[in-house]
């Protein structure tokens, strides 16, 4: 019930922030309206990192407490993180087309890093599907998620350096919007979009977590009924077994 209230609040804030970012804030002098894509790209990228951080921490918590509810948090965050990562890449590409003339700008470290992030966590989700036993799955997924998480800073640095260790040229990147020189209305628009997206994220997390738990309960019920069925079958078969001996 409370999650419904949160959902409505998130929706409201999102609408207000979006209307402001789309219609109220003036368009960028250099980039025109394309710059407005940053208002979804930057919050999505932030939430992708937040999600994967949550996945790693929940995994660590599982290894410590051995509580499957933490695994439910981990899988929820990973799925939502993958969604926001894909969204961030899409917005980045849509922005790159008019500004740079290409969808995929290899010199944008953010785009390439995000693509690797997507690959890391799609792998994580696929991997989870291939293990049946809940505790085994949770423990293995936790270590895989943690190794992915410690890899992210290295990926980030390497791609950042790759662009050119000795190069000082600054590109049109999201950094320029967040820099102090950016006009106040731009910054307010971006901050309010980040807040709105984060509220939506929180609502999605709660709903997905509830679903994950319902899923686990269903799985557990199926397992127990399997054992129960095996007991009935075996008990029924016993007399014949005895007779045949």
């Amino acid at each position, binding site marked *: 019930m409370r999650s419904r209230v949160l959902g409505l609040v998130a929706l409201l804030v999102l609408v207000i922030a979006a209307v402001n970012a789309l219609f109220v804030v003036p368009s960028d002098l250099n980039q025109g309206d394309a710059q407005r894509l940053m208002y979804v790209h930057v919050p999505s990228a932030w939430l992708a990192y937040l999600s994967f951080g949550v996945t790693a921490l929940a995994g660590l918590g599982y290894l410590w407490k051995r*509580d*499957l509810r933490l695994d439910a948090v981990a899988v929820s965050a990973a799925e939502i993180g993958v969604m926001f990562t894909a969204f961030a890449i899409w917005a980045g590409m849509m922005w790159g087309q008019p500004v740079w003339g290409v969808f995929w700008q290899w010199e944008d470290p953010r785009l390439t890093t995000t693509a690797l992030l997507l690959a890391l966590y799609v792998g994580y989700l696929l991997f989870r599907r291939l293990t049946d*036993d809940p*505790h085994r799955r949770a423990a293995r997924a936790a270590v895989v998620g943690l190794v992915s998480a410690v890899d992210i800073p290295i990926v980030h640095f390497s791609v950042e350096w790759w662009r050119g260790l000795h190069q000082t040229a600054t590109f049109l990147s999201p950094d320029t919007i967040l820099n102090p020189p950016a006009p106040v209305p731009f910054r307010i628009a971006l901050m309010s979009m980040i807040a709105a997206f984060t509220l939506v994220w929180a609502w999605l997390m709660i709903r997905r977590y509830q679903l994950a738990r319902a899923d*686990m309960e269903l799985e557990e019920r199926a397992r127990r009924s399997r054992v129960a069925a*095996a007991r009935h079958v075996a008990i029924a078969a016993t007399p014949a077994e*005895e007779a045949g001996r």
Partner: protein
Amino acid sequence: MPQTTIYSAPPRSPLVPIPGVATHEVARLFGRSAALAGVSLQVERGRMVALLGPNGAGKTTLLRILATSLRPTYGSALVDGIDVAERPELVRRRVAYLSHAAGLYDDLTAAENLRFAAVMLGCSDPADAAASALAAVGLAADADRRVRGLSAGMRRRLALGRLLLARPALLLLDEPYAALDADGIALVDRLIGRWRDDGATVLVASHQAERVTGAADGWARLAGGLLVEVGGAGVSVPAVEPASAPSGTGVPAAGTSR
């Protein structure tokens, strides 16, 4: 039971720790099929017990759980009072397991395989331990042959030799007579006698009842993942109320989180 049990690791075993082996409603699922559906069994220390039953009865699954190779899905198992799921590293020091697969490295020689195992088991003089184990299983002449070239029976002997590198308190033998000739069968019987003289507990799984029940103190019969009967000395069912079985009765209510 508190509602959180389906999310956390199984609760502490209700079994009273005894020397020997004790299991309480131990069950294991592989995907959707239940290989073990709740077995409660108790074997006194120093006894030899035959585990009987047709293929697919759950004998191997039970042995693998006791050997710490498989975690039980439900229930608990103790080896000399130590929970196999909670402290597997302690159980591993006490248990030796002869499995279906010999677990050998094909490109190493027989002696190298045993020397490697001796190092893993912490023998003080691995080469010496390996040599005497090889002699004990009648493979001294084949010490320097690669395992790839050995027959199934010889591989089995080599796997038996590996059991001689440590002095386990519990021996789990899965179809030990498989693939062996008359000589090999006599060897297994001799080794079992030796372990029994040492005071070890011995569990022998076999689908051929006549072969193992002669030497055994007692026997337990499995079918379809359940214990159907026990007999003889040293083996019993630990007393538990039937209501505490994990089977289906304790299905959690849906939507407990709301």
